[in-house]
């Protein structure tokens, strides 16, 4: 198929960017979206132009690197996939596709479609861990039984890949699904109880300082999340926060 691409080009964080139009031809429907981008970039390199910079790495939907806002949706029109898992069969011959970076004040653009997500790092550093040393001299792994249901819910929360689609898609650029997932993972486990109050307070404080917006429960994040992280995690974070504040 032949496509028209409108892609955000921005040389670096200091200058303004704009949408630039490109054409690609002979795109196979079996290609992944990023392979289509590879074709475009190969074309640009051969013409001596600078290729479009975009984040990507594992290309199997788990590293959380890829981050494109495609035709007005984070990771494009398919559900439950990252950009690298999106396939061209979701599009039709002759389509015009808009490709933009995640947009949020807390995620400044580095170049073209690459954004700086270190705000997420700082939130995790504020409390996204259990303070246990790494000596291996902890108690036996089976010393504390954990209800299967809790372990499973904790796992569901822990599947977050930190891609930032929730922020990109939220009309308020809120990071609460991301933070809620991490808070929930630990809140559901006995190991996480010791520091629970401090953790949720510190992570939320850092989240607010990073300039993310507030959650208005539109649920867009849950729909666009490639890992299907549930809004229940935000509710749990709210509960944990109230508990910690009382």
């Amino acid at each position, binding site marked *: 198929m032949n496509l028209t691409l409108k892609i955000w080009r921005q040389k*670096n964080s200091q200058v303004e960017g704009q949408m630039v139009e490109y054409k690609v031809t002979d795109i*196979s429907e*079996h*290609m*992944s979206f990023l*392979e289509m981008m590879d074709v475009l970039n*190969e074309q640009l*390199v051969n013409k*001596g132009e*600078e*290729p479009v*910079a975009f984040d990507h*790495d*594992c*290309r*199997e*939907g*788990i*590293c*959380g*690197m890829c981050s494109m806002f495609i035709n007005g949706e984070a990771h494009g029109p*398919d559900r*439950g*996939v990252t950009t690298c898992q999106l396939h061209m*069969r979701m599009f039709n011959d002759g389509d015009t596709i808009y490709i933009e970076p995640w947009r949020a004040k807390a995620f400044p653009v*580095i*170049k073209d479609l*690459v954004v*700086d*997500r*270190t705000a997420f*790092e700082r939130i*995790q*550093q*504020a409390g996204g*861990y*259990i*303070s*246990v040393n*790494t*000596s*291996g001299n*902890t*108690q036996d*792994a*089976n010393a504390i*039984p*954990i*209800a*299967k249901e809790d*372990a*499973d819910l904790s*796992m569901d929360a*822990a*599947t977050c890949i*930190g891609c930032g689609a929730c922020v990109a898609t939220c009309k308020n650029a809120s990071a609460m699904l991301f933070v809620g997932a991490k808070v929930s*993972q*630990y809140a559901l*486990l006995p*190991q996480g109880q010791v520091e629970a109050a401090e953790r949720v307070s510190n992570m939320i404080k850092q989240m607010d300082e990073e300039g993310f917006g507030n959650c208005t429960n539109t649920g867009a994040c849950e729909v666009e999340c490639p890992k299907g992280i549930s809004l229940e995690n935000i509710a749990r974070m709210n509960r944990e926060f109230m508990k910690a504040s009382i």
Partner: protein
Amino acid sequence: MTKLNSKVPTGVPLKDKWTHYKDKIDLVNPANKRNIDVIVIGTGLAGGSASATLAELGYNVKAFAYQDSPRRAHSIAAQGGINAAKNYQGDGDSSYRLFYDTVKGGDYRSREANVYRLAEVSANIIDQCVAQGVPFARDYGGLLDNRSFGGVLVSRTFYAKGQTGQQLLLGAYSAMNRQIARGKIEMHNRHEMLDVVIVDGKARGIIARNLVTGEIERHSAHAVVIASGGYGNVYFLSTNAMGSNATAAWKAHKKGAYFANPCFTQIHPTCIPRSGDYQSKLTLMSESLRNDGRIWVPKKMEDVHAIREGRLKPTEIAEGDRDYYLERRYPAFGNLVPRDVASRAAKERCDAGYGVNKTGEAVYLDFQSAIERYGKEQANIHGIHNPTHAKIVELGTKIVEEKYGNLFQMYEKIVDDNPYKTPMMIYPATHYTMGGLWVDYNLMTSVEGLYAIGEANFSDHGANRLGASALMQGLADGYFVLPYTIGDYLSDDIRTGEISTQTKEFEEAEKEVRDRIDFFLNNDGAHSVDYYHKKLGKIMWDKVGMARNEKGLQEAMKEIKELREDFWKNVKVPGDGHEMNPELEKAGRVADFLELGELFARDAYERKESCGGHFREEYVTEDGEAKRDDVNFAYAAAWEYTGQPSEAVLHKEQLEFKDIELKTRSYK
């Protein structure tokens, strides 16, 4: 020829070596640790866990990742699980048994003492991870669940859905975050190490490029740890991440670290086949699928043609016209033969022309009989007498979905075909590299103060790695081995003080890096980096892939050399060096792969035997199986760089097996 000293503790029985070693080493007092810096390259399971632990101990750690966060290292993509000799199932597991399975699975090409230590500390990993909040799968009693993997007789694999690597990495990442917050780890995201700096024979720092600003930076430390993973991307197409590269390890090699067993590469049998030339990477489907899937190709060539032309569907081929070749060749293990055997068998059928997709490189993995078997079982359980075929399929599909739902969904998203109805198509792909930097018992390379851990080193898996052992090794090295062994070395450095970066060694290394970048950016070539990478990948796959022979390897060495020469004349890299430039990053990595690939082929050429992942067509038994040569090749091949891969000097570390009897692996 220098003699390699593995520094394995002597005079104590195998099972006491590690304890004995730990009792005897020199320690660094906590106040002195504050004055010692350690650089860690890579933040996957090995690098992440090492950074966290070294920082916890009190050292100043400088960690480097080319991604925007440590959490994105490719360890995250490991699906199946992690082995540990916990014996929670009471099925007779022990450190010795895990050790035995690992050495045997590696086709007797690994170092006994290292593997035993790995098995010994494996149980601690699970305790550690649970304490960190890793949500492992549990049974209804709330205790940890296990599953079994290929090549072993016990259930010792711990898992977190199909995302075990992700959860373990996030555990190590959280431990890192705690130390970053305390200021004990200085994290350098989006940085790539481009050279290691040697001062007075010791590794004392690195040159790194800031991938956002393009700045070339000098970083010094008392020791450097390479934890940058494997070199599977030398094949261009692999299950590795796009950015996975050998640059850090290769630079270390060029500065004096021996590179061991490069030809030991694991080709994983169950990956989604290539669909066209545009393909950028291959996706793995977990080995667990082979528990229920049956692998076959058509018996008749006309059926193959009809399928490729779309005139026939696989489901329309009668049972008698299908060749379940693994069950035919290996009746004892059937579809559950180890990875290397399954991969070669698929290649054999496809080479004979029976591949079932347009590229001719695919075989079927069929769940129909599993669905029917489970369906009948469920019908009995639910008391349905004389169920219809449709009912059986419905019930059976539900069970298969419960077991493999996420994998089936992943397949359907990529291939756009329903694997519950038509058989999956699979084909082997490069997955893991057992070879890597040669290290001694301390995990130190042949350069003093330069360590290699995780997939980046060569040590523990011999010629073939068992499923769920990579995660185990990465974390064992990082959490529990390196922190001890590096202390022994650093205890001599307590009076050294900070290492200056204003020395001629740093200056020279930096100049070399800058010159190379300038060359790339100013070379007015004709071809993109990917053009060369794809060509290299094709040579590697065709001639140094699943089956190798003398003629092909000679050709490969020659062709890679020619390709490398052409690359240095005609490569084209757009953009400039003072900003983010992904093409420039790729150019440096591919330049290194072009050297590594040749050494790889040479190592394969010199190893005139078949063992594990290394299969030489000349060295086979009468019935076509791999034929190992323990008399002449029971050694680790450690290569010393002398200027050209073709002139690398081979050092042999003879492998001794005192606690294990060398046997032929048979799966018939």
